[in-house]
């Protein structure tokens, strides 16, 4: 009698900003009906009680903002909380397309900085104007300008490969042709990314043909190991702590957005939802589900909510070699803040990760 009602109203429309409280409350409701594994450290339950959004826990190691002033010892930032003066550690390093002393950063730059100690005052790593584009090449104009499709949720971006980085990027991405995948890190400019660093090696297959994962017998292994990467905030709040999950429930989640993807019929654009599960078999989850993610390189772990759809990660059957060689496949696409908070180094592009479903 009731079940024939409008299914679409339950969909986890990732653009539905009116629903974060609904998503934040899900772990609490799940815990009520199934029991909670970790009563003490359940971020979404806590935020639900506060009526706040999922994933908006205060940042412990990370500070983000725009540079108002910088000296060899202090960084003055305009943050969401107002002006903030951040002391710089003696060994502080900055990145702005390459390593440079913090004093060389420019006023007006958007930066993300990491503290040495939990809640400590001094920062030792700063990234300025850092950006990343991950997706399928749909057009190439000249030797170095590419139009990249980042999937139904994120749309398209322009990448201009910096002259000094052409050789470095082409070694790792030999096929800069429409239909192939690309993942590059660089400096954000108005309307485009100036690519400087290859974030991975190009998969040899076309974007629409990732290899099928091995079949799983019994239950899906938990925890799962693989690669964790990061993405730019896009329409999300920049200090959001969360991750884009590659296997949201296709019946109630972003696969529906894929069906309406404007690129349907485009010769080279690939709808990642139509290419199968990718090279890792992950259990279906929903926006608001919580996962414990551990950075095996920094030995740091955190409970994070799923905040968006990461179907594009399914197309990359790559490995992270930041500390040893990870298992094949991307298991999480973290927000910028979550990646830094977990000890990730942005210009590395990834870290070897272990993910436990439900925490």
């Amino acid at each position, binding site marked *: *009698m*009731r*079940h*024939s*009602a*409008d*299914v679409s*109203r*339950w969909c*986890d429309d990732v653009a539905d900003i009116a629903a974060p409280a*609904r998503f934040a409350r*899900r772990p*609490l*409701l*799940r815990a*009520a*009906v*199934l*029991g909670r594994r970790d009563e003490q450290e359940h971020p979404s339950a806590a935020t*639900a*009680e506060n009526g706040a959004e999922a994933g908006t826990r205060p940042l412990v190691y990370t500070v983000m903002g725009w540079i108002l002033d910088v000296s060899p010892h202090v960084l003055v930032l305009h943050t969401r909380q107002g002006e903030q003066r951040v002391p710089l550690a003696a060994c502080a390093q900055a990145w702005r397309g390459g390593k440079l002393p913090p004093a060389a950063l420019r006023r007006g730059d958007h930066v993300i900085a990491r503290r040495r100690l939990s809640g400590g005052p001094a920062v030792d790593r700063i990234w300025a104007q850092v950006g990343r584009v991950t997706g399928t090449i749909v057009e190439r104009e000249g030797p170095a300008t590419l139009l990249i499709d980042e999937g139904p949720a994120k749309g398209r971006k322009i990448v201009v490969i910096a002259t000094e980085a052409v050789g470095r990027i082409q070694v790792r991405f030999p096929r800069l042709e429409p*239909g192939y995948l690309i993942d590059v890190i660089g400096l954000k400019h108005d309307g485009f990314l100036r690519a400087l660093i290859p974030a991975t090696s190009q998969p*040899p*297959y*076309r974007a*629409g*043909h990732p*290899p*099928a994962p091995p*079949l*799983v*017998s*019994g*239950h*899906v292994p*938990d925890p799962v190991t693989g690669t964790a990467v990061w993405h730019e905030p896009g329409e999300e709040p920049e200090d959001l702590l969360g991750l884009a999950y590659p296997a949201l*429930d*296709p*019946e*109630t989640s972003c696969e529906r957005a894929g069906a309406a993807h404007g690129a349907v019929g485009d*010769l*080279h654009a690939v709808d990642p939802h*139509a290419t199968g*599960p990718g090279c890792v*078999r992950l*259990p*279906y*989850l*929903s*926006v*608001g*589900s919580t996962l414990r993610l551990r950075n095996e390189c920094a030995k740091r772990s955190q409970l994070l909510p799923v905040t968006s759809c990461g179907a594009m990660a399914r197309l990359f059957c790559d490995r992270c070699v930041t500390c040893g060689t990870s298992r094949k496949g991307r298991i999480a696409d973290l927000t910028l803040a979550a990646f830094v908070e977990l000890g990730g180094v942005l210009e590395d592009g990834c870290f070897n990760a272990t993910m436990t*479903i*439900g925490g």
Partner: protein
Amino acid sequence: MLTTFRDVQIPLLAVLLLGGCASKGWRALRARSILAAMTTTGLFPLRSGRSAMVAMCVTELGLGLGLIVTAGGIGASEAGLPATVVRAGTALFFLIAVAALNETRQRRPQAGCGCFGDLSETPIGWRTITRAGVLCAAAIVTIGLPPLHMPSSPTTAGLWLATAALELSLLAFLSPELGEVLVRLGYSEPCELRRLPVGQTLTALHSSSQWRRYAGQVSGAVPADVWREGCWRFVVYQGSARGRRVDIVFAVYLQARRRPPVRVAVLDADTDEVLGKAELASLGLSTRL
């Protein structure tokens, strides 16, 4: 003996051609899109790949049916032109396949042939190319064959069957798809990975005893929220109990059985205090997601 060998080729070729077409069609049915189903192969350039795959599927269907129709008396007298055309066309089809497979193997070693839909995603190897070559030879030997008749004696029938079995064994050895078929036959997808429609979950919920117990408290016509975590799908209804606004949360275990386990909890909608909870232990299930 040679005649028996030639006689067996026509039904074998017809079955293989129709099987190839059917597996591609099945994939299209499952994907609910012909275009989506025709994109897995690396045989064709991207620009013309989809239309070429559709054309290949239609050709397989035409040749398979043509071989059957012209096998008997309709068009296959000694020099029957329709039979000769269909059989020569089949030989040409497999000859082109040998060349295309060999080329694809060199240019795109990671690509599968897509010959039998998504069963053929293994990279093209010497077995796949040899199989196409064997089928091409089989089609060539049928050219000029007189109309087929039922075996005249049990001995002839036995010879037919033995020849067919031998050739099928050879083709099975040359088919990487066979291993995939055997794996899939014995494979049951874990509940965490199984796609199950929301409607099916709601049907199961509404026929459960837990639903009957709490239906009186439900006030919303449709669920306030539905989501999934692993093997469980959660359905939240708004309701009222003893004058308080409550949320009634049902957790439905995702399995194909008609009556899956269902758990329920009732929470105060304003304070999130848990007011009622079903006995969990009696259900004998872990809370694994």
